[in-house]
């Protein structure tokens, strides 16, 4: 059979179900791709032996009625995996081995999949280029020295390089959708509460949401179906019936209304992205969709709001890293307080410390109202903008990012220009609604560009159907020459 690692997840599942390939053969082909690479740096931990063992035992007594039968999957190193190091891309957790499994990964394993490895990411998921990882930069398979986006950069890179058939990431302000857009892959951020946060290393609890990163829209539907579940262990988990996103996927989008928000046409946006957006509108019109001009007037305040809310929650969540219960401890310090201060100073990287300091400041006595409370009010306005729009339209179409992938180091010295990467993705997290990024074209350098579809809460099926229909018409082809091998 031709290179099976290039196939989409749903094709592989079909082949396994028809007994045309074995899980072991499949696992071997991904391990080979992982071993042939010493440049991308997409993996922090590779679980070859364990994965091969699991694949062999699957082949011995295959359970073919599961959603992910015998499928090896590498996951972002932010999901706690029992007995396997989980670092969150940080020195602080360099040697942390959880003795429990995150709900989302457990759901995947219950559907027949098994762990292939842990993927690099920005430290504690704080970053948009994977440059804040303690374990080094990750490169984008599209071109040498180009960032894969972040924070789920290792996930996007490994997926685009055929080192895993599918993967999962987390999205706090765009960390699934932006890297998907940069690597020509599909990334879905579900409605807040659809996938359990239990066992995921916390960044900003009111924004964090796990989701699939895949080669096709069908694969995202399949993965979401496997990942989503009600979980008593996450107090914000939504109690609803499981949906069959994959089975119910269809191209029937005629008659839907899709909004185009004028505020997403930002100054300095490359012409190519504007053209991409226009093309998306045209494709939808041709499918019988009505295009409606809408306004989301508070869009420009989403990023400033995010940079109060997310650091505030992070400073509180990351208070647990004190060098006592788990993780790194500094050898320096003459007393308990000094031990805390040195542990946190040596264990966290610069971006994480920067965000903890911002968060501590906006929550500190005398500043709470001016910053945090103000941000929560603006967040309300941003949410209302979406609520109003969804009275008129079924979904919203925007570009995924204001640029294509950039060079490593290009934005490193300038936090604001780095933060601006997430300008189109952040509002969705603030409002807790779902959104998907699909590859929609290329720029002058042949770098992929993505379009984002935003939907009503828990309306993932409609979002997937629209994306599925657009995918067919766009017919995006990845052009990657595997420069990182040999």
């Amino acid at each position, binding site marked *: 059979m031709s290179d099976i690692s290039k196939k989409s997840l749903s094709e592989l599942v079909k082949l396994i179900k028809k007994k045309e390939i074995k899980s072991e053969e499949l696992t071997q082909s991904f391990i080979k791709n992982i071993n042939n690479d010493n440049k991308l740096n997409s993996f922090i931990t590779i679980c070859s032996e364990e994965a091969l063992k699991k694949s062999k035992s699957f082949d011995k007594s295959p359970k073919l009625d599961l959603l992910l039968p015998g499928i090896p999957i590498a996951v972002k190193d932010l999901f706690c995996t029992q007995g396997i190091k989980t670092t969150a891309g940080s020195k602080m957790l360099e040697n942390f*081995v*959880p*003795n429990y499994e995150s709900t989302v990964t457990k759901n995947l394993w219950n559907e027949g999949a098994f762990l292939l490895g842990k993927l690099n990411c920005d430290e504690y998921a704080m970053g948009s280029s994977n440059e804040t990882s303690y374990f080094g930069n990750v490169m984008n398979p599209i071109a040498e020295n180009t960032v894969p986006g972040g924070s789920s950069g290792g996930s996007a890179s490994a997926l685009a390089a055929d080192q895993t058939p599918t993967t999962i990431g987390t999205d706090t302000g765009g960390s699934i959708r932006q890297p998907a857009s940069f690597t020509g892959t599909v990334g879905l951020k579900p409605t*807040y*509460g659809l996938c359990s946060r239990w066992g995921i290393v916390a960044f900003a609890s*009111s924004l964090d949401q796990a989701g699939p990163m895949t080669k096709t829209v069908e694969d995202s539907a399949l993965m979401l179906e496997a990942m989503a579940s009600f979980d*008593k262990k996450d*107090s*914000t988990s*939504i*109690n609803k019936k499981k949906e069959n996103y994959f089975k119910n996927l269809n191209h029937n989008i005629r008659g839907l209304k899709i909004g185009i928000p004028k505020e997403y046409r930002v100054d300095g946006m490359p012409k190519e992205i504007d053209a991409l957006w226009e093309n998306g509108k045209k494709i939808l019109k041709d499918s019988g969709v009505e295009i409606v001009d809408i306004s989301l007037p508070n869009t420009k*305040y989403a*990023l*400033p*709001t995010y*940079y*109060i809310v997310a650091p505030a929650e992070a*400073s509180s969540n990351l*208070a647990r890293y*004190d*060098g*006592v*219960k*788990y*993780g*790194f*401890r500094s050898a320096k310090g003459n*007393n*308990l*307080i*000094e*031990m805390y*201060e*040195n542990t946190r*100073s040596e264990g*966290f990287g610069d971006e994480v*410390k*920067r965000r*903890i*300091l*911002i968060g*501590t*400041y906006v929550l*500190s006595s005398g500043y709470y109202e*001016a910053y945090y*409370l*103000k*941000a*929560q*009010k*603006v967040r*309300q*306005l941003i*949410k209302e903008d979406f609520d109003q729009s969804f009275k008129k339209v079924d979904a919203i179409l925007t570009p995924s990012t204001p640029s294509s992938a950039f060079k490593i180091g290009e934005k490193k010295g300038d*936090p*604001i220009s780095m*933060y601006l990467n997430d300008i189109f993705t952040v509002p969705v997290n603030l*409002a*807790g609604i779902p959104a998907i990024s699909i590859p929609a074209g290329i720029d002058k350098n042949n770098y992929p560009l993505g379009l984002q579809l935003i939907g009503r*809460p828990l309306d993932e099926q409609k979002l997937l159907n629209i994306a599925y229909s657009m995918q067919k018409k766009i017919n995006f082809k990845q052009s990657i020459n595997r420069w990182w091998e040999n």
Partner: protein
Amino acid sequence: MSIDKDKIKHISKLARISVDEKKINDLTKDLASIFKFIEQLNELNTDKVEPLSSILNEPLRSRKDEINDGKIRTKILENSPQKNDEFFVVPKVVE
């Protein structure tokens, strides 16, 4: 609100992160530009807006206060950087 070195030192105390003297100038510059960016929010009048308290449409669930695990001391201590048989070990706190 202006960010200066003293403020940074104060916040780092609160956050229990020691800040390297050599890095404090760069950090002050970065945080000042971030706060300038954040303070765009002051353009908006939000006097009549209720702050968002939850993005879920339903209230948070409460649960019965029940013990459903326990006897996991060894597990909890497994990842501790310093421990003895039963306890986390920290630098001496009481003289």
